[in-house]
């Protein structure tokens, strides 16, 4: 009898059930989408924060002091120590290599242009270099670590004729202020230490590079006469914001704490691991970038968390309101059932069974709609997938049932308490 009453209730009151079902579906969809976005926002913003550039720098351990003012290096060019370019692909072999988005080696060389007496820095680096570690090919370079570097024909606009040089070419980029000073344009050549180098584009960075020549690393090494030499490496890595554990010195840790520290993507532990794979190196966080990410990230995450609570609250309220209305409209039915001898328990059971059914159907539909919504948000805003954890599904479903029950409970209690005589007389 009971299943039949439930079945008939759905069949005969399809319109009302549909309304309640739509409310639940929409509520669950919004809740799912918001939870998915909020759980993923940290990762997404972390990636966006990488547009600030590298947060780690690797230098030779026994390096001499940099003597650099306004981007001009006053140190004798072959002075000091170097890293070995051949060691760089090993960065892919560190524990947290998935978190390392990219790296760029830098080799500044002080050169003279043509016959002028003025010193200019020629900076050797990777632009978009393909490297191989083990069986895996990957590309890295300033494209990834310095996304604000722009190449143009000198007018600030990107165009096909003025492009990044290939990493194995003899072409260079001229910093925009240097280019203006020399009066050089892309396509022309510039004489550097007796070599004629073709200018493939004008580089604008807003930094010291605007006064420099930027060349492929191999070319800078040839000019310096030190094959394989690298002065420093900028590494851009996704990191976890600092906390009490991150700042501790690994040498004073107990083995368990050390393991936990080593296996957390703190900027400190990634620096430590970089030092392990690159011989005679010293890795340091770039504090301007590394220390500020944490605050920005936690602010945005906190904000999304609070908004998600607001969304959950609003959708719970919407579901409750819809359920309360649906039940309130059925007092006559309750009166009839009670007049026929149904107890409070069986009437409540009927309503709860209906609510459960609605919650399950609405929950499943809402979850899929919410997943779709989250996917859309991820694609349109972050250009990447917002993944929905499968573990979210039972949680959302339970939440839907819980909220639907909660929203119905008060209305059911009132409907059950209502005197059947009044209900049947049509009063109330």
């Amino acid at each position: 009898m009971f299943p039949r009453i439930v079945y008939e209730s759905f069949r005969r009151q399809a319109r009302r059930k549909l309304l309640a079902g739509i409310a639940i579906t929409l509520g669950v969809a919004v809740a799912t989408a918001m939870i998915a976005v909020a759980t993923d926002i940290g990762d997404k913003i972390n990636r966006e924060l990488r547009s600030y550039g590298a947060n780690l720098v690797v230098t030779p351990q026994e390096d001499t002091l940099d003597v650099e003012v306004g981007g001009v290096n006053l140190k004798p060019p072959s002075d000091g120590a170097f890293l070995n370019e051949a060691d760089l692909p090993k960065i892919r072999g560190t524990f947290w290599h998935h978190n390392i988005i990219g790296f760029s080696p830098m080799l500044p060389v002080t050169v003279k242009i043509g016959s002028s007496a003025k010193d200019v820095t020629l900076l050797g680096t990777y632009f978009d270099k393909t490297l191989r570690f083990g069986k895996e090919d990957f590309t890295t370079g300033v494209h990834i670590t310095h996304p604000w570097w722009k190449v143009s024909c000198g007018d600030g606009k990107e165009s096909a004729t003025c492009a990044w040089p290939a990493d194995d070419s003899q072409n260079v980029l001229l910093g925009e202020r240097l280019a203006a000073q020399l009066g050089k344009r892309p396509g022309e050549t510039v004489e550097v230490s007796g070599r004629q180098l073709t200018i493939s584009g004008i580089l604008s960075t807003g930094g010291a590079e605007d006064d420099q020549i930027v060349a492929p690393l191999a070319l800078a090494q040839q000019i310096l006469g030190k094959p394989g030499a690298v002065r420093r490496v900028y590494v851009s890595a996704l990191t976890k914001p600092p906390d009490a554990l991150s700042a501790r010195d690994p040498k004073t840790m107990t083995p368990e704490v050390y393991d936990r520290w080593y296996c957390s993507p703190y900027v400190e532990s990634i620096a430590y691991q970089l030092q392990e794979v690159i011989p005679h190196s010293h890795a340091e966080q770039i504090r301007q970038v590394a220390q500020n990410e944490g605050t920005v990230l936690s602010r945005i995450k906190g904000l999304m968390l609070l908004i998600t609570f607001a969304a959950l609250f609003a959708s719970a309220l919407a579901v409750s309101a819809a359920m309360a209305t649906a039940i309130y409209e059925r007092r006559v039915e309750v009166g009839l059932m009670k007049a026929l001898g149904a107890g409070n328990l069986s009437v409540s059971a009927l309503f709860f069974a209906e609510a459960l059914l609605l919650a399950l159907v609405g929950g499943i539909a809402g979850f899929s709609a919410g997943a779709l919504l989250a996917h859309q948000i991820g694609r349109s805003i972050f250009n990447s997938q917002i993944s929905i954890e499968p573990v979210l599904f039972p949680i959302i479903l339970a939440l839907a049932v819980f909220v639907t029950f909660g929203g119905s409970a008060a209305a059911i209690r009132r409907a059950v308490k209502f005197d059947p005589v009044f209900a049947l007389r049509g009063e109330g």
Partner: protein
Amino acid sequence: MTGITTSGTTDTLLTPKQVAARRASAPHTSMFTRMLVRAAVLRRRRASSALLAMVVAAAVATAMMNLYVDVQAKLRSEFRNYGANVVVVGKDGQALPADALAKIESVLGDKTLAVPFSYAVARTKDGQSVVVVGTDFARARQLNHWWKVSHWPDAPNEALVGMRAAAVVSPNRQPFELTFQGKAIDLVPASMLQTGAGEDSRIYLDQSEFQSWTGVAPSTIEVAANGTAAQVDASIRQLVQLLPSADIRPVRQIMEGEANVLNKTRATLYASATLVVLTSALCVLATLIGWVFDRRRDFAIMKALGASERLINGFFAAEAAALGVVGAILGFFIGIGVAAWIGRVNFHAPVVPRFSVFPYVLAGSVAVALISAILPIELLRRVQPAIILRGE
């Protein structure tokens, strides 16, 4: 019949004339308002749940709009922790005019941080070159939060020594001597400076000490300009006019990173706020439709007593509008409170209430209330009053 009440009890029978006179003396609107008020009072439970839904929706909408506008400003000030976004440099390495700093501050306002830097290459006792920088420590400390310094210099001849410079000049934190063009100076390391960048190889001195030692005036001023990208651009244009002898350069790394993260955050916030506002509108819709539908009996009685359709529509619309207005006003203030609370919890600064969003909240609330009143009325209009009154 609780929805409608007669206009009070009468002890004596009145003649039709007296009744007519009484009716004429009572303004026509008073019955209308009375019906509105009585409807709300007599069904306060249902009315209050409808009002609650309205208030919550208006509050959520207000909070979201307030946050959407204010959070961007809040985040921008967080991004200023990344340091300078504009650099003023003397052309060709020349020193800047002495009044450059004062000029910059007068143009950009008090909140703008501007820090002067002057550079010189000095020699250590054993002949090593090291870059020495003169600056204003109080300002540099505010601008460059990420500098890891245990003790900022506050006594004469105290210096901040970069990590790597320290290994050369003062490995055991002992006092050291530097010479610049034959002039020597004795310095005490106040603290090590760690940044992971070029600063690590330099020694920082107070500007006045630096200048009396080397005679070098500031050649660089780093500026943290507040505001949106357009405002920063305007600041740069102002500075270009103000200081023709200097190069004004935006720090692209900082500005583009900020724009990128901010745009994404804003878009996410916008999507979330839209979803939340829509959900709460849905909540209002569901509650109000139920409320109006529930009162089909009032509707039927009014119709049976000969009320015109216009009057009934007007009555329910007025009721919904009143609900919308009251809900919007209450919700607005609650919403401002919620936004302020979120601002305090998350940004440690309250969100400034924006009364400019009130018209939108009000219009939205009334519109949703009207829609949810008119929908069920349209359904009920087709039904004969007798059927409703029979309770079917």
